[in-house]
């Protein structure tokens, strides 16, 4: 043990003291917190009202539509400022409005044809026609007005009809063992963000092990070290040290996630918006599946690093190693869609996919405990097997220079490493 500690400490300090680590550790929570809080803040943000005019060909619709637009409000503030279309014949008014829009005095104008009510059609002319939300509001407003006119024309009371044809407000409620809670639209995005964080960090810290091994080999430090301690100590110390740095980062993130969700919950409640919920199970599995993913992939990366001489050489060998991670990411929409299907369950139990997919399932539903347990056992066993193989490749590879070994050669290293 005493010969492991110096390695662990050296690796840990080297990572934790690096600028990249400090930046990522501090920026991570700020970005995530931002991503969670931003939508809430933005919900309260309303842009400037749209300046519009109504070009009416029917001669009767204009004032009604103008009144409806003026009255239209979102979050208590008017959405439209209706400018008069001006006097004169139709063509002159149209030309004047066009000029006003091009000159910037007006955002756009609405053209109501004489048959607007019967055909339910109108046109909007504006410099900017990609402000979807505003245009949707405009459409809804005009549509409601025209519908009202059609209804009264057919002898119905528009107010009464609106009441009778009220749209369904579907609330989605997620059942969990702990009780029921209203589900939020933010949940899926939140799950994806957390899973992508897992993906990125497992890859990032695995790469850190990879480049660390290659550098030690290139600097020839490795020979000095393995002349003092067994190579397996160096490998174990490296995995633990780099892993501890990753864990430190993760704990900082998990802690800020918990804080943000606590602070955000109160904040969100006040603003009437919704905030993803962070449960202890989620936090624990976030950290746990990071550790499993890290150990699994970084031991493979260590074996790759030991087999090559340069980072460039490592690229081609590293790709098959992190392929399963990419596959895991590719499967995520399907798992998110039906997290408890047989396929999702099976995929999330495959050790190389477990860290991402089982975690993803945990974020959207609570899988049966036996599944979580089984995923931990399977992944744990795989890690031990991979470590055993990686240690043998590592032991021989770190002292080999020159030509990159072929696959049969690597197999031979595994078979009799001495």
């Amino acid at each position, binding site marked *: 043990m005493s010969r492991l500690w110096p*390695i662990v400490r050296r690796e840990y300090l080297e990572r934790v003291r690096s600028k990249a680590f400090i930046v990522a550790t501090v920026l991570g929570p700020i970005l995530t917190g931002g991503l969670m809080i931003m939508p809430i803040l933005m919900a309260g943000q309303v842009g400037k009202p749209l300046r519009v005019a109504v070009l009416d060909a029917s001669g009767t619709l204009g004032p009604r539509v103008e009144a409806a637009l003026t009255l239209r409000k979102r979050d208590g503030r008017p959405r439209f400022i209706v400018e008069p279309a001006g006097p004169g014949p139709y063509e002159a008014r149209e030309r004047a409005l066009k000029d006003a829009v091009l000159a910037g005095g007006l955002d756009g104008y609405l053209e109501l044809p004489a048959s607007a009510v019967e055909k339910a059609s109108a046109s909007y002319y504006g410099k900017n026609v990609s402000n979807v939300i505003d245009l949707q509001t405009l459409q809804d407003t005009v549509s409601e007005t025209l519908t009202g006119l059609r209804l009264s024309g057919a002898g119905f009371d528009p107010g009464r009809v609106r009441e009778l044809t009220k749209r369904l407000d579907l609330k989605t409620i997620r059942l969990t063992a702990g009780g029921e809670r209203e589900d939020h639209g933010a949940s899926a995005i939140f799950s994806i963000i957390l899973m992508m964080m897992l993906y990125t960090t497992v890859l990032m810290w695995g790469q850190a092990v990879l480049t660390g091994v290659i550098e030690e080999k290139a600097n*020839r*430090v490795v*020979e000095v070290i393995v*002349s003092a301690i067994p190579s397996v100590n160096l490998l174990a110390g490296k995995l633990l040290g780099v892993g501890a740095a990753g864990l430190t980062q993760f704990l900082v993130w998990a802690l800020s996630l918990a804080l943000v969700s606590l602070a955000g919950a109160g904040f969100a409640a006040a603003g009437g918006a919704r905030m993803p919920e962070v449960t202890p199970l989620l936090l624990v599995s976030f950290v746990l599946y990071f550790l499993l993913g890290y150990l699994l992939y970084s031991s493979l990366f260590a074996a790759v690093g030991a087999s090559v001489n340069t980072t460039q050489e490592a690229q081609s060998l590293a790709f098959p190693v992190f392929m399963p991670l990419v596959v895991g990411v590719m499967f995520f929409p399907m798992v998110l869609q039906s997290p408890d299907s047989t396929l999702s369950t099976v995929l999330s139990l495959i050790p190389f996919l477990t860290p991402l997919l089982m975690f993803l399932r945990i974020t959207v539903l609570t899988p049966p405990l036996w599944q979580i347990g089984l995923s931990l056992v399977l992944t744990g066993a795989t890690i031990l097997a991979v470590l055993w193989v990686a240690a043998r490749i590592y032991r021989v590879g770190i*002292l080999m*220079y020159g030509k990159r070994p072929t696959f049969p050669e690597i197999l031979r290293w595994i078979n009799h490493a001495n």
Partner: protein
Amino acid sequence: MNDTAIRLRGVTKGFAGHLAVRDLSLDVPRGSVFGLLGPNGAGKTTTLRMVMNVLGPDSGTIEILGQPADHAARDRIGYMPEERGLYPRMVLEEQLLFMAEIKGTSRREARARIPGWLQRLGLADWGRKKVNELSKGMQQKAQFIATVLHEPEVLILDEPMSGLDPVGMDTMRGVLLDLKRQGTTLVLSSHQMETVERLCDRVALINRGEKILDGLVSDVKKQHGTNTLVVAFDGDGAFLASLPEVARVTDFGRYVEVKMRDGADAQAILRQAALRLRVSRFEIVEPSLHDIFVARVTEHGSGPSSPAGVSAP
């Protein structure tokens, strides 16, 4: 008390179809300064790696200070590989602490020893600097400190002088002699025959994985007789090599070393030389290690025993 520092018996090591070291037996007595010589690819590094238990031999036994070459004995040896290895972005003092620690020395002890060594090798102002800010010669000295900080009883140095300027070489030689006086056993692997000749009392010569010479430097020289001449002259001395008395001529630039055939008369060569050249020096000397090295390796057949790519030379 065992008086052998390193003992190899019938050690053989092969890599993918060829033998890097074959049936090698060696004894390095305690307190000696032992020169391990051999051309590139002769198997020196492989041998040293086996001694350091970085590699395991295919057959044969290795003992360090009377114990099998396992982990317990490793802390009592210091090993400086030919390819220096330090972490470039690590502060020198921390690096030294780390190296001492993995050799089982406590941080406190190591910290107490560091200033003395930095002082001794002229690195006193560099302790807080990162290794990649040091010059090549300084890194070489730093590597040496990392090798001796745990106060090993046996010190194995692969090319200890490479990268040092003449002042640095003198400092290093002084340090090595001090260590020898304190009873440290030194094993030097080097191509610099001058260094070996000045420091070593024993040498072994390895070629193509086999030992072809072993013994006290004085004995080795005696074995190779007093049939060597040093001749300095003006003029074209090319004809010397074709004289019937001459076996081989080694040109050192300002003088040549002439190896005579057995039973040849030095005076005959002197007469021939005086006829055709302006001779400024003519001396019968002991053969240099360099000459013995070249002669024996040529005799034994050259060519590396380990092709590049399988292991470092």
